[in-house]
């Protein structure tokens, strides 16, 4: 399959990227790993006239903790977060989400930044990063701003990035002591998008949950935050009864649509089951001392 003709740029700095975006406000697209955009272009579902590749822009490959947050640069590949010791140890939910995106070959090029900027509700990172209360840095010619992920994700394939802004970094607050995170995905086989998936983070003080984050994948026009379930958990001991009720509330927040993978009520039931499992796992991780420095 041959995409529509386009002009390709690989600028060496952000200011050059902004200039190109300003010159072509309606028909330019940023290219990161290309693993979402190139398939769309091959099907001619996307027909940008200009592609602006970020591969030569310096400073977009940070993967480190800095000033109380994990910083994931826009060009960090899924394979890097999948295999990073830091991520495996301190952000197991991100590790688990990376490991179920597409397949190992796609993950060698696909980026976390592209996974969020694409804003497909079927993408795996948005739900996990909602649970972790992440934000994104949008950098444009007039400076940079930090946008909570809740506000960044607007609708299906729509974000609050301005036409001349580039997503440069993702910031994930460092987990408090006695925190645990996990990502659970139901998929038919490797390479499939989620039928349903859930990302969770639990923080405990003693045995009381002081903060809960729950994000849901592919059961709405964008990744869904299960706000009622989060509020219900906060201030309570995560006993089996509490977990079951929180899972019920998360399923009620889901807005799935029936498709070849199953009817609405099936998907809602899967969200309930996955949420309960994820909450048990995250609680256990938090109790086990959670993340170590």
């Amino acid at each position: 399959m041959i995409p529509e003709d386009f002009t390709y740029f690989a600028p060496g700095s952000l200011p050059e990227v902004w200039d190109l975006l300003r010159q072509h406000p309606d028909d330019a697209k940023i290219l990161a790993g290309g693993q979402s955009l190139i398939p769309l272009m091959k099907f001619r579902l996307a027909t940008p006239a200009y592609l602006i590749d970020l591969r030569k822009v310096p400073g977009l490959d940070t993967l480190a903790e800095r000033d109380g947050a994990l910083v994931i640069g826009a060009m960090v590949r899924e394979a890097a977060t999948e295999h990073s010791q830091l991520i495996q140890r301190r952000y197991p939910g991100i590790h688990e989400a990376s490991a179920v995106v597409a397949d190992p070959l796609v993950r060698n090029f696909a980026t976390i930044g592209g996974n969020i900027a694409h804003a497909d509700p079927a993408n795996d990172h948005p739900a996990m990063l909602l649970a972790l209360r992440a934000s994104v840095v949008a950098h444009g010619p007039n400076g940079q701003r930090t946008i909570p992920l809740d506000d960044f994700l607007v609708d299906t394939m729509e974000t609050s990035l301005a036409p001349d802004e580039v997503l440069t970094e993702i910031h994930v607050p460092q987990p408090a002591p006695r925190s645990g995170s996990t990502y659970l995905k139901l998929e038919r086989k490797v390479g499939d998008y989620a039928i349903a998936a859930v990302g969770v983070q639990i923080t405990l003080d003693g045995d009381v949950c002081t903060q809960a984050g729950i994000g849901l994948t592919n059961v709405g026009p964008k990744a869904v935050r299960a706000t009622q379930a989060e509020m219900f958990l906060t201030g309570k001991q995560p006993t089996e009864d509490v977990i079951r009720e929180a899972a019920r509330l998360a399923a009620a927040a889901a807005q799935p649509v029936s498709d070849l993978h199953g009817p609405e009520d099936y998907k809602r039931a899967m969200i309930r089951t996955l949420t309960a499992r994820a909450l048990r796992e995250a609680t256990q991780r938090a109790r086990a001392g959670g993340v170590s420095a």
Partner: protein
Amino acid sequence: MTTQHVQMTINGQPYAADIEPRLLLVHFIREVANLTGTHIGCDTTSCGACTVLVNGVPAKSCTLFAVQMDGAAISTVEGLEQNGALHPVQEGFFEEHGLQCGFCTPGMMMTAVAFLAQNPNPTDDEIRRAISGNLCRCTGYVNIVKSIQYAAKKQREAQTAPAAPAEPAEAIR
């Protein structure tokens, strides 16, 4: 229609051409460099028949533009054999009956070469995960796993022998 100049190496040989930016890497390899060992199967990023190494990292060449590869070092199945001797991975597929129709084999082998450079002593399960982006419609995978284990063992033995070790692929960043 505008064209753009690219240059890259494929199996160490330099290639340069003026191409349309929309030319996919797999078409550059097959139609500009005339190396038809790299296959096109699904053309939708699913099967891995088009797998090549980009600076040592395996990727699906049907889902990359050739212009993105300006300055890159590409490795394809044609580069595995050295001085008439099969690469240990090729030898493994031969010895362990790792192919039937052979359509998936070039991609499968390129994934295996890069994987063994990272993990020289894998479990069967680790091999299955590593090749989970490469589909085979013939073998049922059992003999492919055996073939890769054969190559792993052969490469480990070569490492302990005094001969020069194989060059490791560049780490995935």
